[in-house]
């Protein structure tokens, strides 16, 4: 029976109190892991998507590119596209176009794409509509639809959404470009040689273009996500801090309540360091166990999130391992334990300094 085993017993002795103290840590850790985990998962998923879906460089109009609701001059026009296509440094050139339109007076967003791997859908590629259009108009595979006076037959249905209350239609890019006055949103291409050189060549040789390499994209993703995660991490840490403060509080109460017991431990020969160690151990255990429970809770919530929201974000194949990388688990569990041990320092120091004779008289 070592004095450290006593730390376990002490936590078990006051189960409700230990559980309530741990609750602070549990909530703090769960919030932190949930937010950082979701951010990290999204970040690695987006980076992976960028690397697999994108060519070496992507080329846009120099105004920043044409997206939802852009005006006509934000696109790459015919002339520009053919100049790019003629560049010897580039090969495997793929165009993409996107524009807004209407379908039976319902606003829709049309994405003309080349790489059908980036969309998850049931059916075959060609003309894929989203669930909201299916729900509104009762479309199914084989239904006829009209976009900008052109008729198409639905070949597939996707669960992805614009998230903005607009219908979403994916079309083969060759069919979509004529609908958008032959204008292209972006061109992705593979480069012969260094993508950085190809990027500079495109920007200097084709006026009115802006090119981005894969590493430009991943850097942009990192910059954005790191900023967001730092911010939410700082806010979520406040929860953890409150949990840690409650450990200081409860350990002070524990030490005061157990004054006589500490006196007995010293009387039967335990050193000040051993008493200090046992209290630190108790505080550390609160943090360690609390953080493990918090971690498991966050993992469950993240998995639920993947199941519930994954299909809409086109991320249902993202795994929990993306969201809970080893570094996050280690930093959070280690950090919460370390902070809890630090929280126990003052109560433990007080306990170790107790005068034996006075402690033994304590009621």
């Amino acid at each position: 029976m070592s004095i450290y085993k006593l730390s376990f017993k002490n936590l078990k002795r006051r189960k409700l109190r230990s559980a309530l103290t741990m609750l602070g840590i549990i909530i703090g850790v769960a919030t932190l892991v949930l937010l950082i985990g979701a951010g990290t998962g999204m970040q690695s998923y987006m980076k992976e998507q960028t690397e697999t879906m994108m060519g070496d460089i992507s080329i846009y109009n120099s105004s920043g590119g044409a997206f939802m609701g852009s005006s006509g001059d934000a696109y790459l026009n015919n002339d520009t596209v053919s100049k790019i296509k003629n560049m010897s440094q580039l090969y495997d050139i793929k165009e993409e176009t996107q524009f807004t339109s209407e379908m039976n007076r319902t606003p829709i967003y049309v994405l003309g794409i080349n790489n059908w791997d980036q969309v998850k859908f049931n059916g075959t590629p060609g003309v894929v509509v989203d669930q909201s259009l299916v729900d509104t108009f009762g479309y199914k595979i084989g239904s006829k639809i009209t976009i900008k006076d052109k008729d198409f037959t639905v070949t597939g249905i996707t669960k992805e959404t614009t998230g903005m209350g607009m219908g979403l239609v994916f079309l083969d890019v060759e069919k979509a470009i004529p609908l958008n006055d032959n204008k292209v949103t972006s061109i992705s291409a593979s480069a012969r040689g260094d993508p950085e050189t190809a990027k500079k060549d495109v920007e200097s040789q084709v006026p009115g273009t802006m090119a981005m390499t894969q590493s430009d994209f991943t850097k942009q993703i990192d910059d954005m996500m790191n900023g967001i995660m730092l911010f939410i991490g700082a806010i979520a840490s406040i929860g953890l801090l409150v949990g840690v403060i409650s450990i200081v509080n409860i350990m002070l109460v524990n030490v005061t309540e157990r004054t006589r017991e500490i006196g007995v431990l010293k009387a039967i020969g335990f050193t000040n360091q051993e008493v200090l160690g046992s209290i630190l151990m108790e505080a550390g255990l609160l943090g360690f166990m609390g953080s493990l429970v918090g971690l498991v809770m966050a993992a469950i919530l993240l998995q639920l999130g993947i199941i519930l929201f994954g299909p809409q974000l086109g991320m249902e194949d993202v795994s929990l391992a993306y969201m809970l990388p080893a570094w996050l688990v280690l930093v959070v569990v280690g950090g919460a334990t370390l902070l809890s041990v630090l929280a126990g320092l003052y109560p433990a120091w007080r306990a170790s300094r107790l005068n034996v004779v006075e402690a033994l008289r304590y009621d």
Partner: protein
Amino acid sequence: MTDILDIKGAWKTYKMGAEEINALQGVNFKVEEGSFLAVMGPSGSGKSTLLHLAGILDLPTKGEITLGGKKVNELSGKEQAHLRRSQIGFVFQRFNLLSQLTALENVMLPMMKPDKKKGKEILDRVGLEGKYHRLPTQLSGGEEQRVAIARSLANDPILILADEPTGELDTKNSRMIMDLLTELNKEGMTIIIVTHDPMAAEYAQKTVQMSDGTIYE
């Protein structure tokens, strides 16, 4: 016979505000190996303070203490704790068992090397066969004090110090505890008890009277 404990010219002075109180006033106290001593005296006579010095729970303001051949004043706090753990067994008036631990765990708590078999043997020795796994709340006062005595024996000490060991017990249990201490003494254990109880003191080979911080033999 060698002296296990030798307290020479011990003073213990407490400050209560501006006033100084001398709990001990130049006490000389020798304890031979194998003896069984009772220290008696009214409250405030200094007998508990003397026991605390004997058990290195406290140090004298002035004077010298030698325990098992070691000069206590010259030891570091850690060495004092080690000496306390290895050489002294404490028995308290209020038993002071750890309520979250079973009888056996309480006995094993101070052991330098945890030894379950030895813990059980000691509990058998004090008459608690089969009650190893009871918590203190599941034991009677007399049984609790026997566990406390068993705990004091965990590291084969050279000296047992008991502060009012019968203070919270009825006559029957008091006699059982004193019988147990007497048996241990017959087996060679040196024992000092501090008590108000003349019945308990009768068991000792020798009684020392204290008043106003001084010993009258």
